[in-house]
């Protein structure tokens, strides 16, 4: 949900609704609550987009499109084992300055996705692509997901590549977006002038 202050800041920043791309970092609520007392805590957030939808015969509505949270929610129903492991890994990553075990977090080996890392699940198929937010140097931002199939054919590798590139593109959007005064986890890509 968006509070009054955020709403006012967006309005003040003269964001063009329906034209500009408004990005925000959405918290994974249960992790935030669970780790609120942790000595070391690096927030892990998902990259979401604020959109204005016309709705069905109603007034325009502002909604949050969060594809990563949606995918995680899907996994929590259809891939429960993988979901628990991914979240367990995220909890470990959030509470440690550095992760050494490559079975938990490892860099993505792709020329066009430098700086992107992969939260892996051994004995499972789910993958989550994350990067360290250069704006605060502390948060990890999840920008993509992928289900790795057992059969690693050329077709499958292509799909994996596409998922990595999509995640890298979304990361670049966040990096390129301009800050919004008064807000730290919101940025805007100005499109409409």
């Amino acid at each position, binding site marked *: *949900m*968006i509070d*009054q202050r*955020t*709403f006012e800041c967006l*309005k003040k920043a003269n964001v*063009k*609704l*329906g*034209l500009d791309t408004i990005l925000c970092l*959405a918290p*994974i*609520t*249960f992790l935030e*609550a*669970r*780790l*609120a*007392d*942790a*000595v*070391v805590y690096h927030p892990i957030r998902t990259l*979401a987009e*604020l959109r*204005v*939808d*016309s709705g069905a015969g109603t*007034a*325009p*509505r*502002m*909604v*949050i*499109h*969060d*594809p990563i*949270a*949606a995918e*995680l*929610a*899907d996994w*929590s129903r259809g891939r429960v084992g993988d979901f*628990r*492991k991914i*979240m*367990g*890994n995220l*909890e*470990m990553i959030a*509470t*440690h300055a550095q*992760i*050494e*075990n490559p*079975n*938990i977090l490892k860099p993505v080996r792709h020329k066009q996705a430098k700086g992107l890392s992969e939260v892996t699940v*051994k*004995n499972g198929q789910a993958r989550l692509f994350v990067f360290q937010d250069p704006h605060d140097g502390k948060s990890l931002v999840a920008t993509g997901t992928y289900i790795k199939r057992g059969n690693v054919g050329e077709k499958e590798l292509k799909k994996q590549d596409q998922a990595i590139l999509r995640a890298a593109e979304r990361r670049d959007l966040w990096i390129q977006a301009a800050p919004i005064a008064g807000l730290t986890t919101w940025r805007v890509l100005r499109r409409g002038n």
Partner: protein
Amino acid sequence: MSNKIASLTQAELWGALQNQLESGTLGEPVAGEVPDLAADPDYLFEVLRTRLAEHLYRAMKAAGLNENKLARKLGVSRQAVNEVFQMKTNMTLKSLARFCAALNVEPIVGVQQRKQDVIDPVPIMDAVSSRPISIPLPAAASGGQVDWGLSGLPAGSTGLLDIVNCEKSRAAKGSRNGIRVAPPKAPVGRTMAA
């Protein structure tokens, strides 16, 4: 952008959204939210296994060993060691003790009250003042978190498990009520939240 939105001016759009803000639904997520797993024992198992894998991996690196050398020291196959780091096995306490002995580190076991129970303790009406008073639940009843860590073996240590009971309440943040059998040296990884 839909035609309907395109036909509205920015002022009209902001006006419509102001109404949504007042109704408390502004910025609702369109898809489901990530569920809370804090009370899921299978999740806590994954958390334990992940922590253990990371701490043992760090201890292995700190000891200047690799999986092959560690396997030789333990008298097991490299595959068996690798499965621990890959979080594929449900490691027994005996195996953990063997790893710790081989790596010259000491395990630390502890539990702490889960955050949720600290934020929202069970309210009990005080009969005298009729004011609700809060009594934090004991870790065993509330299902407190269990944390595992490893520390370097102190000189002359008997290798006993270092058992720390750190029931923590938010009100008394920083206080720790624990009994240490063998106080460890500087921890290898994060051990208990202070």
